[in-house]
């Protein structure tokens, strides 16, 4: 547990000093929001209401891939990842530390991106902000758990950053589904649908367990 906290602290301090990861992710996702203006057929309220959740989550996913890759690219500098692997005890705690840092940074980016969507497309999140935050949190937990595991694998292959989306996106289809349906209902003022929450909790549980246990095997040569 101490290992996880130490890594979380290290990642947040590093990010605070460099500020490169959050800024890159944020610029990217807001840029995506702007690009969508050109991709949407029109600006009518019905169009926006049905399409915004999907667009929002597409932006989140791409930003997540960017951040997850960077998270482990940092550990390859000076072979710092070997330094983590030298720590005694289970490697699952290393996973938890990295995943927690990714979760916090991605959540920050997501909140600001949601604001950008609200601003650009006149979507009103204020009445459903808490519900929306709950859906986003549940889905982001799933993204960051399996994403941290797969990023740690992908950056050490020959394809590096390119491989992560190919590995990660198929695994995130259920998360995306639950998140988009949840977001649709929340934005329509219907509250969080039980089916979405149930699905996301099941996936989070499964992915957290697989990633925690799987990390034991991926740091060695």
């Amino acid at each position: 547990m101490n290992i996880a906290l130490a890594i979380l602290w290290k990642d947040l301090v590093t990010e605070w000093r460099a500020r490169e990861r959050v800024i890159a992710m944020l610029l990217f996702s807001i840029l995506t929001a702007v690009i969508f203006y050109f991709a949407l057929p029109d600006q009518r309220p019905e169009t926006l209401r049905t399409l915004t959740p999907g667009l929002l989550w597409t932006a989140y996913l791409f930003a997540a891939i960017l951040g997850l890759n960077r998270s482990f690219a940092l550990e390859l500098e000076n072979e710092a990842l070997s330094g983590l692997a030298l720590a005694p005890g289970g490697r699952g705690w290393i996973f938890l530390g990295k995943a927690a840092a990714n979760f916090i940074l991605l959540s920050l980016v997501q909140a600001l991106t949601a604001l950008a969507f609200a601003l650009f497309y006149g979507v009103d999140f204020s009445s459903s902000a808490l519900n929306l935050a709950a859906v986003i949190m549940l889905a982001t937990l799933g993204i960051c758990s399996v994403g941290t595991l797969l990023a740690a694998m992908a950056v050490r292959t020959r394809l590096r950053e390119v491989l992560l989306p190919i590995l990660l996106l198929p695994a995130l289809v259920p998360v995306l589904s639950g998140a988009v349906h949840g977001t649709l209902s929340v934005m329509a003022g219907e509250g969080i649908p039980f089916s979405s929450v149930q699905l996301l909790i099941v996936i989070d549980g499964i992915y957290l367990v697989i990633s925690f246990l799987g990390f034991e095997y991926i740091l060695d040569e």
Partner: protein
Amino acid sequence: MTPMTKPFSQTKDDSAHTTNGGLSPLEQQATRWRQPFGWLLVVITLVYAWAVFQAPLDHTQGVIQKILYVHPPLAYGAYLGFVITAIGGLLYLWRGREDCDRLAISGAEVGVLFCTLMLVTGPIWARGTWGRWWSWDPRLTVTLLLWFVYLAYLLLRSFSGPGPRTARFAAIYGVIGLVLIPLNYYVIEIFDNRSMHPDNLERGSLGDGMGWPFLLGNLCLGFAFIYLVLLRWEVEARRVFQQRQEALEEPDT
């Protein structure tokens, strides 16, 4: 958390079996079983082809209905291949047995083959019967997603070079892939109910004289699947063994 000491996990490789062309005892067993399967396969394929040929034409769908004798049986192979991959991977992680890792490779490759054939034959039939190539039918969607997962699996393997690390990466990804099958069905059941597949193909929807060619199809493709998995397994074992022999002869490379 108390620091715990983990004993070294070692891989038990099989390069010691020099007398058997590099095959582990399990792989030798598999090779022995492959032969009778091969002969059985030849016989059944002939009977199967004849049965499909002489089966009555469906009066509404015409000749395109004959894809039915191929398409559903492919599914068993596709899904079973991925189950084999996950189990082989887990056994590799747990026991460190390289032969299980090689079994995982063959499961994934043969599974991808069956999955691809299923994704090709499905739309052809759908075009003739439902009127359009692609329908986002739940089973079709899940199969497509699965196909992507296993292509990613093969890509992961080919881009991280030889060695135990690649095998461990692949094993973990194989487990994620297997978990995704029920998860995706669950997703579609909740959000998306647009199934066009008949629920009970085996009973009822087949006309007179179509039942037993269909049964033969299951048998034939089932045997073909087993045969191909065993063959691919043996090939992989021999390939690894040969590479080791060559590397031994030229230690400077």
